[in-house]
């Protein structure tokens, strides 16, 4: 299969060997079980595309931003619908599945580029961190708000952020839950190129075209050498997330967030 159009995302392979994956779920690509299922289909198809591709670009069709992270409403409601004893197993299963997807994209023998704009929060930030390069337009904002709800990022955020930037930056993002604008994110070393509003995808495509000029085996060797996947820390992250998830404070924080009708949803 060389293209796919799903409920939450689409992907296709261009004639010049670039795979474009576009997130498109209202309002801002919140990652729900449907997204996970379609990402799993994508990663299952990926090995079949390696030979005829050299790059992967991930972008968003939503004007609000790249991705606002996990669908907390679905997470909360699904969790509440289960007997208390089964909730943890369901969350762990979701995390294990999304880590499998993330690790496949992270290790793909392609040059991977996230073309981001607007809200790039939580799971959306983690999706961008899978990529080798982040091209961001001036509207982009990066944030890990999870601690504000009594959790840690669960899709591999901390180990991958630690891989890319200094520990002080990780602590700033994590422990304050504040968002970085694109200037701050580039200064921290997260963003490869800052471009004008609306130009991230176009610049990502030009960057992908440049990478096509290089010897493929050399690129794969360089990437493997410079971008190791922190498997052990990723496993630890799942354990810590699950340990925190069972606390009543998290349940209460999620409930307040989900039930909030304020323009600014509940976040302490």
């Amino acid at each position, binding site marked *: 299969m060389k293209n796919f159009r799903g409920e939450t995302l689409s992907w296709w392979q261009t004639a010049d060997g670039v795979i474009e994956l576009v997130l498109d779920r209202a309002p801002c690509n919140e990652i729900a079980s449907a997204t996970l299922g379609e990402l799993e289909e994508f990663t299952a198809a990926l090995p079949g595309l390696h030979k005829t591709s050299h790059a992967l670009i991930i972008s968003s069709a939503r004007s609000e931003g790249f991705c606002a992270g996990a669908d907390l409403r679905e997470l909360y409601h699904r969790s509440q619908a289960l007997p208390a004893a089964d909730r943890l197993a369901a969350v762990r299963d979701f995390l294990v599945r999304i880590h499998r997807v993330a690790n496949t994209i992270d290790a793909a023998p392609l040059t991977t580029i996230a073309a981001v704009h607007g809200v790039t929060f939580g799971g959306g930030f983690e999706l961008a961190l899978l990529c080798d390069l982040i091209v961001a337009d*001036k509207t982009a904002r990066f*944030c890990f708000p999870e601690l504000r709800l009594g959790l840690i990022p669960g899709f591999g955020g901390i180990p991958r952020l630690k891989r890319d930037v200094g520990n002080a930056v990780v602590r700033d993002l994590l422990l*304050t839950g504040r968002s970085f604008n694109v200037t701050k994110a580039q200064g921290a070393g997260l963003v490869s190129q800052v471009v004008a509003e609306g130009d991230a995808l176009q610049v990502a495509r030009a960057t992908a075209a440049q990478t096509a000029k290089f010897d493929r085996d050399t690129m794969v060797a360089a990437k493997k050498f410079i971008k190791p996947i922190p498997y052990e820390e990723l496993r630890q992250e799942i354990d810590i997330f699950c340990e925190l998830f069972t606390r009543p404070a998290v349940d209460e924080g999620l409930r307040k967030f989900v039930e909030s009708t304020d323009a*600014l949803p509940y976040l302490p």
Partner: protein
Amino acid sequence: MPTLQDTTEEVLRLAAEHFKVPRETLGANDDFFKQLGINSLQALDLLTRIEQHFRIELPDYELQGVSDFRTLAERIQSRL
């Protein structure tokens, strides 16, 4: 250093321009969520414009509970 009034006026101008509403429909004490009809994602967009325009960093948590232009201008003023 601009005065609070200058900063408030600049925020009103920026908001009107960005959300394409007539400047005269916005007042310093207005609730910007209601007056501009914006949600939390659009409020973040406004924060980005403000940070770029004033060349400051304004952590999101400083805006918790802030909904009127004058208080927003005060938060900006403290970072200038």
